[in-house]
């Protein structure tokens, strides 16, 4: 009897543990970015560029987001360095004029409205506050999407945070509201939803 209980408990715990470890992995699918992008070479000593050189605001106050190929082509008409990543970029994208289809880690669902200008221009928040150190990174993090909702890991709900899967904070509704509360702001639903 005792042995049976032991075996059952051990098996039970083992499958529980396996499920605990496997579930987050099975919930998310990894998708490849079109090419490996290195922020450090551009924003560090080598490129010496400011974030705004590539991530600018349009005339109407909206955020232009990830730069289009035309803003890269000026420097990368030919490969300047020796790296495979750059050669690949020039051969596969710049020469044929093909726009890389970047996957956006912070991409919000269609019904959410997030404006950069009140945060960056009016409230003077640093990019790092929400995006972590992406602007200084040398390699791209894994881009993971939820198999059910199709949303990136960064905008999924609590569970992702609880399992320590979240990279930076600030992209989920809870995070938005938490920071707004801290700043004494409170918004109606339609302020952030459209």
């Amino acid at each position, binding site marked *: 009897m005792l042995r049976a209980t032991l075996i059952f408990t051990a098996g039970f715990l083992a499958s529980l543990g396996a499920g605990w470890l496997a579930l987050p992995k099975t919930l998310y699918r990894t998708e490849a970015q079109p090419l490996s992008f290195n922020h450090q070479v551009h924003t560090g000593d080598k490129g010496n560029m400011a974030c705004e050189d590539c991530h600018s605001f349009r005339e*109407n*106050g909206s955020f232009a987001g990830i730069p289009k190929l035309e803003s890269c082509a000026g420097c990368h008409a030919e490969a300047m360095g020796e790296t495979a990543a750059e050669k690949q970029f020039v051969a596969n994208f710049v020469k044929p004029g093909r726009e890389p289809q970047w996957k956006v880690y912070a991409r919000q669902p*269609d*019904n959410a*409205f997030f404006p950069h200008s009140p945060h960056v221009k009016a409230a003077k928040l640093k990019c790092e506050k929400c995006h972590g150190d992406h602007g200084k990174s040398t390699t791209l993090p894994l881009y993971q999407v939820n198999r059910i909702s199709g949303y990136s890991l960064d905008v999924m709900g609590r569970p992702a945070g609880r399992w320590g899967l979240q990279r930076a904070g600030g992209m989920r509704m809870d995070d938005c509201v938490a920071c707004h509360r801290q700043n004494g702001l*409170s918004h109606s639903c*339609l302020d952030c939803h*459209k």
Partner: protein
Amino acid sequence: MTRTDKASPAAHYAMIIDLDRCEGCGDCVVACALENNVPPPNPKATPRTGLNWLRVFRLEAAGRDVFLPMPCMQCGEETPCQSVCPQKAVELDPATGIVGQIPERCLGCRYCMAACPYQARVFNWWDPQWPAGMEQTLNPNVSVRQRGTVEKCNFCHGRWHAAIEKAAAAGGRGPVAYTPACSEACPAQAITFGDLNNSEFAALTNKPESFRLLDSLGTGPKVFYKTASTAVRAAVTGAAKDTPHA
């Protein structure tokens, strides 16, 4: 959620529709549908089950055709749709005075439609469908609603979003000025939009020739009408009382 913020002092958006100018062309209705991603009518739709955020009625008074455009009146007091909603899916935003419908919360019971004295609300009986290619023209500032939810005019809230985004880019805060699609599209300039906290605009609503529909209900509508003709005014206010509930 009520709003206790210090960032943007309250605005109270309102609309004045000049019945002596409106010629019933319907441009406002089309502009409204395009702006707010209201799909073309489903083949099975009837006048009762179609989708319209803005309707234009035709009456006869003072020996002429009178056209009456009716958006949501954005009732500011005892807002009927808000008070009956079991889901808290209707929200009167104290910062703008706009009555918002929140599709994420709406369960489609349609109490609000029964409660609305102006029948400004419509129900999605079908999932929206656009003719091939037309989905390319959807407005990214307004999300598409699904079957089983109620929707209505919200004074082009997406344009308000764009306006605060633009103001903030210049470091600005507080109430913003913007123009809803219907007002912009009207070739007769019959629709004036503004903020009641602006005394110049508020004065326009206090003129003797301006009035509101079903004012006596005490729901504080924020759409005003105006006409110089007492006969037109009597016909319009009378018609609003008689409209049968759909």
